[in-house]
C-alpha cells in the first residue's frame, strides 16, 4: 500500500500534443494542388518517426516525444507531371525530375505549436557525388595510412553526361570556422577548386556509371595497407600535370587553393564539405577572402551557390557530443543534412557512400533527397565503383 502510494507521487513526462505543420507548395502551383498524403520524417538523435499529411497538405501529430527534430519531406515528380500542376509556363523537359522538398534542422519541438513549412523546388541534377573516402586506415605495420583518399562522381540520370569543364571543390574547414552557411546564405567559401579537363565531350560518364578521383595517389594501396583501396585504375589523380604520380592516370589540377597543397586536401577526421559546380564564368575572377577579422593567411575563393550541382557536408564527429550541426558550411539547398564517419580522428577505413534507391533495367539509381543524412551511409572497407554492398540498400 505504501509502495502504491509512493508510486503515485511522481509526475510522468508528457508528450507534445497536436503539433501541426501546414505545408506550402511553391507559389507557381495551382491553388487547388495540395501537399496531400506525403510522407514527413522526423529525426532526432534517438529516434526516427514517419507521418503522412492529410488531404489539405496539413500534418497533425496527436502525440510526439519532445525533442529536437530535423523535419524532412520531399515529393519527386516528372517534368511532365510538374507542368500539369503549375499555373504558369515554365521550360522544363518532360523527362526531368522535379523535387519539392522542405527541411527544418534541429527544430526544438518541446511545446504545442502550429507552424508552416514552405517547399523548395529543385530541378534534379544528373551528376552526384556518390562516395567520399577520407578516413584513411592502418597500414600493414599498424601505422596511420592517409594517402588513399578518393572521391567518386556518379551519373544518376539515364543519359550520358560529360564531365568536361566542371569543377570539384572543397569548402574551407579552418578552426575556428571562418564562413558558416548560417551566416552566408548565398556563397560557399572554398579551400580548393579542381577543374576537369576536356573540350566538351572528352570525358563522358554513362548512365549508372561513375568516375573515380584519387585525391592524392592513384595506385593500389592494398600493397601497403591491406584494408585500403585499389586506385590504380582511377580516372583522375589530383596533381599538377599529366605524366607525374601514376602516369597512366589523367591529371586533375588544383586551379584555386588557399594553400600551396597540390593534392585534394581531404582531412582525415573531417570536416570535409565536398561539392561539384558548373559555370561559364572565369572562376579566377571570383573574389577571395581572408577569414573574418584577419588580414593575412589563407584566402578562400567564393563560389555562388546557384552554380552548385551537388554537395555533401561531412562533419567531424565529436567523441562526446557527435557532429556539431552549427558548423555546417553548406546551405540546406546544397545539403539539407550532414554525414559523418564514426571515428573522431580517422584511420578506421570508413567511407561515406550514397545509398542505392533503385535498379532500373540494370541501371543503378542512387538516392538523392538532397540530404546526406538520409542519402549516405557509412561503409567500412570501401571498394571504388562498387554499388553491390547490401548496406547501400538500407
Amino acid at each position: 500500500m505504501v509502495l502504491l502510494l509512493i508510486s503515485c507521487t511522481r509526475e510522468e513526462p508528457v508528450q507534445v500534443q497536436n503539433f501541426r505543420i501546414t505545408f506550402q507548395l511553391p507559389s507557381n502551383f495551382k491553388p487547388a494542388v495540395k501537399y496531400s498524403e506525403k510522407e514527413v520524417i522526423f529525426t532526432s538523435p534517438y529516434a526516427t518517426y514517419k507521418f503522412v499529411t492529410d488531404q489539405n497538405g496539413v500534418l497533425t501529430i496527436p502525440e510526439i516525444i519532445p525533442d529536437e527534430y530535423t523535419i524532412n519531406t520531399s515529393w519527386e515528380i516528372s517534368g511532365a507531371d510538374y507542368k500539369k500542376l503549375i499555373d504558369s509556363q515554365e521550360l522544363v523537359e518532360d523527362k526531368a525530375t522535379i523535387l519539392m522538398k522542405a527541411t527544418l534542422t534541429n527544430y526544438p519541438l518541446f511545446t504545442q505549436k502550429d507552424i508552416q513549412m514552405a517547399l523548395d523546388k529543385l530541378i534534379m541534377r544528373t551528376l552526384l557525388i556518390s562516395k567520399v573516402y577520407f578516413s584513411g586506415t592502418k597500414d600493414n605495420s599498424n601505422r596511420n595510412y592517409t594517402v588513399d583518399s578518393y572521391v567518386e562522381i556518379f551519373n544518376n540520370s539515364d543519359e550520358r553526361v560529360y564531365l568536361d569543364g566542371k569543377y570539384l571543390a572543397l569548402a574551407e574547414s579552418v578552426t575556428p570556422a571562418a564562413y558558416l552557411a548560417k551566416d552566408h546564405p548565398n556563397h560557399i567559401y572554398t579551400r580548393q577548386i579542381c577543374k576537369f579537363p576536356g573540350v566538351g565531350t572528352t570525358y563522358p560518364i554513362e548512365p549508372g556509371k561513375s568516375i573515380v578521383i584519387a585525391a592524392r595517389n592513384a595506385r593500389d594501396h592494398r600493397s601497403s595497407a591491406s584494408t585500403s583501396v585499389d586506385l590504380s585504375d582511377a580516372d583522375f589523380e589530383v596533381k599538377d600535370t599529366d605524366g607525374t604520380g601514376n602516369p597512366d592516370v589523367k591529371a586533375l589540377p588544383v586551379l584555386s587553393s588557399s594553400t600551396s597543397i597540390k593534392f585534394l586536401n581531404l582531412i582525415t577526421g573531417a570536416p570535409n564539405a565536398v561539392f561539384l559546380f558548373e559555370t561559364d564564368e572565369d572562376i579566377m575572377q571570383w573574389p577571395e577572402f581572408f577569414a573574418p577579422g584577419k588580414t593575412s593567411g589563407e584566402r578562400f575563393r567564393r563560389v555562388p551557390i546557384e552554380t552548385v550541382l551537388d554537395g555533401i557536408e561531412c562533419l567531424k564527429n565529436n567523441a562526446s557530443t557527435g557532429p556539431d550541426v552549427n558548423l555546417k558550411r553548406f546551405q540546406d539547398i546544397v545539403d539539407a543534412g550532414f554525414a559523418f564517419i564514426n571515428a573522431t580522428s580517422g584511420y578506421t577505413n570508413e567511407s561515406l557512400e550514397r545509398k542505392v534507391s533503385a535498379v532500373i533495367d540494370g541501371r543503378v539509381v542512387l538516392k538523392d533527397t538532397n540530404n546526406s543524412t538520409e542519402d549516405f551511409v557509412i561503409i567500412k572497407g570501401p571498394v571504388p565503383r562498387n554499388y553491390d554492398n547490401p548496406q547501400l540498400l538500407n
Partner: protein
Amino acid sequence: MKKFIIFSIILLSFCESIYSQAKDSVTKYPDIQSRELQIVQQQWLNTNNAAGLAFSLVNKGSYTSLERFVSSGDYHRAQEGSSNKALKFSTQRYDRFNDKIYVRGSFSFLMNNEGERAWSDVINTYNSNPYIYGSSVKGDYQTQKFDLNLKVYSIPSGKFNFGVTVDYHVSDISRQRDPRSRSYSLDYSIIPSVTYAVSKNSRVGVDLYYRFDKEKMPGLTTVQTDPNLKYYTFTGMESAIGRIGGYRGFSRQFVSDYIGGALQYNYENKKIKLLLSAGMDAQWQETLGDKKQTPGSYNSFNYRFLSNLLIKQNNLLHNFTLSATIKDGGADEHRQNLISTRDTLTGISTETWVTIYTYKNRFVVKTSDIKASWKTYSQIASGKGFRWSAGLFGGYSHFSNIYYLPKSEIGAGKVFGGAEGLYLLFSRNEYKLEFEGLLKAGFKTDSYMLLASQNEISENILIPDFEYHKRNTAEIFGSLRYIFPMKFSKGAKLTGYAKVYGGNIFATDSNNWSSAGVAIGLLTF
C-alpha cells in the same frame, strides 16, 4: 586521501591511548561471544541515533579482523563481474572519553579485484542514477575502500541524552583494461541525535541526517590504439549511445546532497526491549561533465522502518526484527545544446552546454525490501556467550525501473526465507569451536520487461538481467570459528579467533555463485 589516513591514525591512536588508561582493571580474557550478544542487545545500533547506544552498553574493547575472501560464478547481473578476490581489514572499538561520554569507532579497508566486468565504470550501477557509462569490453576492476565510522554518545543523567554519528568513506575504483577509467568517491555524513525519557520505561529519539557524496571520473586513458573501441553513455533502460572513441575527452562526476532524519520509540522493562524506528532521507544528485554538460539529475526519497524486539526468557534471548526500506528515485533528463561563442577581437571561441529542455522523471526507479526474522540465543549461565543460536527469516524484495517516452520497463520481485543457526561444538576454559550455518531459498514472485526497442544494450544487459531476476535460488552457507586465548604474553589479555567459511547460491538453469573465505582476528579489552 592523506588527510583521511592521518585522521584514521589519530583516531586509532586515540582509542589505543584510552585502552592503555583502562587496562589496569583487566583480570581475564575478553569473550567474543559475550561481546556479540551485547551488540545484539544494543538495539539502537540498528538506527542512526547514537544517543540511544547509551541504553545498552558494550564492554570496552577492540575487535580486529583480517579477512581474505573470494567469490565467483555465473549467477550475477550483466554489469557485475564474474569474480571477486578481496582482502579486508577491519577494526571496531567501544570505549569512553570519560565517565559521561562514550564512543564507538570502526575502521575498515577493503581491496577487491572484480573480474570480467563490463558496461559500467561507476560505483553504483543498479537502481540508481541512470546517467552511467562504461565499455562493452570486459575487464578487471580494482577497488579500494576506506570506511570510518564514529559514534559519540553521552551517558544519561537526566531525561535527555545526546549523541552524534560521523561517517566517512573514500573509495577508488580503476579499470585495468582499455578504455581505462579511474573513479574516486568521497562520502561523508553527520548525524546528531537526541533521546528523551518519556517515563521510566519509555523513550523517544530523533536524529537528523546530512550526507554528501561525490564520485568523480576525471578522464579515461588507453594503452593500445584500437580505432574501433566504443564507449557507452546511458540515460536509462536501453536508451544509450555508443560512440567510437567516445572515451576521448569524457569526464563525469556525481555530486549528491542528502538530508533526512528518523524518529524512534523505545520501551524497556526487565524482560522486554522494543525499539521502533521510522525515518526517511531525500537525495539530490547532479551529474556533471565538461563545459557544464549534464545529461540529467537524479533524486531519491528513501524510507526506512525498523522494529527490533528483545525478549529474555530464562537463559534464552529472543530477537524479533522487522525492517523495511523503500526507495523512490527519479531522474530528470536534460536536452542540451553546445553553444559556441567567438570573441570577434581575439578570435577565441568558448563553448558551453545550455539546457534547452528537461524531461521530468523520465527515468524512475523504485525498490522495496521487507525482512522479518526471529533469532534466539541459548545463553551460558556464567554469562560467557551462548551455546547455540537458531533463527528463521523471510522477506520480500522488489524493484522496478521505468524509462518514459517511449516507455520501457523492467521489474521483478522475489520472496525469500530461510533458517540459520550456530552451535558450540567445543567449549573449555576460553577455548571454543563453533559452527554456523544458513539455508535460504528465494522464489520469483513476478518479473516483467517491456522494451520500446531492441538494441545491443537490451541484448547484452537487460535481457540477461531479466533472466537473472527470473531465477529461483537456493543458498547454503557454513562457517567454522575457533576462538582461543592468546597466552603467549602474560601482560596482554587477548582473545584470538580463526575462521573459515564458504557458501554457494544455486540458481535455476544451473547458474551458481560460490564464495569462500578465511579470517583471523583478535579481541582486546
